[in-house]
């Protein structure tokens, strides 16, 4: 069986976002694998370690710089990687077409995708890919195992959470709690440099963006930043409650 893990390269969450010419500026920013995608990669590796005959392929669709994220995925343990080079940004619905085409060409039976991407804040890629392939999906999965040709897991829904089973092939979107992704070790980082990373051109996929990007800005809400020294707790509490009642007027 072959598992495809989608790898997206995003800004490190700890860094501040800079805007240049109406778009987020990636120059000199620290870029990392989307932490959501690490859960999927880790889960794919654990499945491979628990059964015979599983190959794990990492896929990125994006600019050439995404190679770094794929090398990290290879260092985690992916068998090989595919980079579909796309210089112009694609929205999730458009990108799902590329992912689905790769999944078909590679005869993949299981796809992992992050539950919500840290750049798009989107939850669409996994579901849209599943639709294109005619597969079922399990989203926001936080426990998963493979039982023959069936997945058994747990995921979050509107009203709480539920346990489920679903037959392969399927798309699974991941979230925290699924596992603790492994750390990269130096030997594995070295080994990853020699693993196969195949580049493909976006042209061959016949995909156009569905959404037009108009602009981006960082809207910072001006905060009052009134600080109260709390060594004297009763006095601090009195001051805070007074501010809430009489300045902000948010409590009675």
């Amino acid at each position, binding site marked *: 069986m072959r598992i495809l893990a989608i790898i997206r390269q995003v*800004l490190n969450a700890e860094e501040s976002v800079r805007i240049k010419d109406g778009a987020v500026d990636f120059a000199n920013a620290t870029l990392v694998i989307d932490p959501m995608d690490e859960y999927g990669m880790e889960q794919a590796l654990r499945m491979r370690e628990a059964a015979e005959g599983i190959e794990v392929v990492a896929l990125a669709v994006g600019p050439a710089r995404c190679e770094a994220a794929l090398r990290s995925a290879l260092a985690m343990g992916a068998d090989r990687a595919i980079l579909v080079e796309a210089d112009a940004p694609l*929205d999730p619905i458009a990108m799902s077409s590329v992912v689905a085409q790769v999944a078909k060409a590679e005869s993949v039976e299981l796809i992992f995708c992050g*539950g919500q991407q840290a750049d798009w*804040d989107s939850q669409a890629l996994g579901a849209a890919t599943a*639709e294109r392939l005619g597969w079922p999906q399990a989203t926001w999965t936080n426990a998963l195992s493979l039982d023959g040709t069936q997945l058994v897991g747990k995921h979050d829904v509107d009203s709480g959470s539920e*346990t489920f089973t679903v037959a392969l092939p399927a798309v699974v979107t991941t979230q925290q709690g699924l596992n603790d992704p492994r750390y990269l070790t130096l030997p594995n980082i070295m080994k990853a440099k020699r693993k196969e990373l195949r580049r493909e051109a976006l042209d061959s996929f016949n995909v156009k963006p569905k959404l037009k990007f108009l602009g981006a800005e960082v809207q910072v809400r001006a905060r009052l930043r009134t600080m109260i*020294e709390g060594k004297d*707790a009763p006095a601090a509490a009195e001051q805070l409650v007074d501010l809430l009642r009489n300045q902000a007027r948010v409590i009675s």
Partner: protein
Amino acid sequence: MILIVAEHIGGKLSKSAYELTEAARQLKREGPVTLIVLGNQVAAAATAAAALGDQVLVADMPALSEYDAEQWSAAVAQIAREGEANTILIAGSRSGREYSPRVAVKLDAPLIEDAISLHDAGAALQAEHYTFLSRVTERVEAEGPVVVVTVKPGSFAPAKPNTEPSEQYDVALELPQRRLTVTGQMKEKMERVSLTEADIVVSGGRGVGSAEGFAQLVEGLANQLGAAVGATRAVVDAGWRPYSEQVGQTGKTVQPKVYFAIGISGAVQHLSGMGKSKLIVAINKDADAPIFRETDYGVVGDVQQIVPAILRELQKAP
């Protein structure tokens, strides 16, 4: 027509149905504002929907008794095709955001996710939504015979019901088999105040010390204020609180009138879930905690001392 998928629970229309109706009324798209009610024995919800839309389409069938992404997307796409919908508005709930991409693919339509504002731009639709862990406000434009939109909860005021109810029409649907088999359900405790709709949210982080500390300080203050309770990922991971209370990137997004952050350092993933709150109050012993950069009123001190003092202060008459 403009299609609105009206969510409902326990026979009641969800708040999102009213907000989506308001969004549809503000947009001047061609055709009637049409609410769809999907489910089993949904007469009460359909009646409520009839007070909102220009017409209501009701798919009331046993097969729809439980939500399923493949069935919901098939139903919505089928109705959209037959009614030649130009706009489909779906709540930005977990389920709405799960099946809406399938609707977009079925209709070869663009998808705008989690819109906070919507504007007509000729034949196109423009929207704002948050990206980069809610730190960036992005503007996008979608054009096509039909556009699928999910709307972030709380982004539009709830629509006022019409005085005259509109017509309800039953629709027959061809539904696919559900393939994801649900083997068990763990329902969230229905809180007195819903976390995502509450005017005041009191949240706790690791700084409250323990599950007992959380109950005493965070729940104590929430009860006093009639507020909903929230938690950080660290608190949920530690098992002190249920996942349903988590606020942040992977939990819930809240934008209450007042957000109390108790013993919360302010990781960016947490800030992305509450940074749009109108007023933020933080109590933390570390003056350098990142939360204080996003704070209106900050108290630097020991939460074990400060919170009980606040409770005593609140109990005094104003």
